[in-house]
């Protein structure tokens, strides 16, 4: 894995191993924020940014805990650093774009508990990526997340106009839709896996 080229890592993460649709990471914002297109895209961008920051921090931290033989502290240090990074993004956004800050609402602080972010940090550690590979991986994860979010938002906007039975409405319908989307993404399986 560690010798995969950057392009392969990026493609595989965006399409074949899409974080949301193939690896089930970050489902909560995926189901929660994907109602409207104009909140989906900024949410994706914010998450991508946090992913890059988290990836960078995680790389440094991993080096640090390994150097001192404190591997059992890895998880705790990752989550604390990610939580602080989210806080930082929140403050910056509040200052420079209050409208966006309000639109994202509760989901912004919840990026902390977005498993996609911690997932990036944990997977890059498990796969022993170097710094550049880790950053490309994080970017791919973010782009993949945004792509899934935007696609889903588009579908759901159309779905609002359709008449569906009462029983199916709500989360059940969103899940079915996500299943179909995931099925479509299965078509990318194997892409970017080349030796």
């Amino acid at each position: 894995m560690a010798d995969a080229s950057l392009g392969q890592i990026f493609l595989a993460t965006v399409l074949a191993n899409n974080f949301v649709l193939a690896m089930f990471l970050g489902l909560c914002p995926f189901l929660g924020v994907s109602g409207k297109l104009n909140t989906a895209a900024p949410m994706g961008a914010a998450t991508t940014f946090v992913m890059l920051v988290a990836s960078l921090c995680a790389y440094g931290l991993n080096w640090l805990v390994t150097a001192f033989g404190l591997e059992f502290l890895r998880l705790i240090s990752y989550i604390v650093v990610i939580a602080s990074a989210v806080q930082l993004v929140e403050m910056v956004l509040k200052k420079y774009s209050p409208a966006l800050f309000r639109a994202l609402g509760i989901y912004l602080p919840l990026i902390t508990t977005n498993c996609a972010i911690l997932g990036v940090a944990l997977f890059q550690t498990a796969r022993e990526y170097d710094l550049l590979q880790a950053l490309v991986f994080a970017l791919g994860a973010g782009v993949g997340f945004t792509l899934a979010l935007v696609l889903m938002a588009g579908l759901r906007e159309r779905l609002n106009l359709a008449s569906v039975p009462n029983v199916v409405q709500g989360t059940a319908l969103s899940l079915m839709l996500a299943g179909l989307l995931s099925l479509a993404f299965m078509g990318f399986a194997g892409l970017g896996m080349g030796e």
Partner: protein
Amino acid sequence: MAIPGQKELTALENFMEGVWKQNPIFVMVLGMCPTLAVTVSAVNALAMGVATTFVLVCSALLVSLMRRIVPKEVRIATYIVIIATFVTIVDYLIAAISLALYEALGAFIQLIVVNCIILGRAEAHASKHPPAWAASNALGMGIGFAVALFALGAVREILGAGKLFGIALFGPDFQPWVVMVLPPGGFFVLGMWLLLFNWLRTRSPAAGAMKPVEGHGHG
């Protein structure tokens, strides 16, 4: 220890809340990521359920014990550190008990940290109630979570592999419905379960106590 009055009844209700009325998966739709990712087989699902329950109960107990010491401003950070500590313990425990299971669950054991059921319980319940109360509620939530995971895992394993707990259920002519153990299957099966619960709810108005599944998960 707990609130005086009809203690017996409320204690039971407090425990049952998570098992049925506020089931974290089927009613609140929380903690979706581990739910869908690890439920390819019944064994994985149960292991995940037990691991999560352990973290849930321990962290609820500790959060509840510390609820008067922790300053309000840093409470979330404190909770996360507490949760991460217990997850690290579970992570090492599972690796020690069964390496095969550890590899099957992969990063999702560590991702229990960001399971919002746990943080949600810590913030909404454990930080406001005495330890025994908080722990029993957390235990109920954990059991509800484990049962739901098992329901998903069992259906996916039966349909997708024709097995339950690795034992073949059908004859050799059974054609596995492979898509069920692939990622899309997770979405479909969970959607079906939610449909079933929605349908049950609309059929019996008495069960109106369960809130409609309009929510969304986070975490």
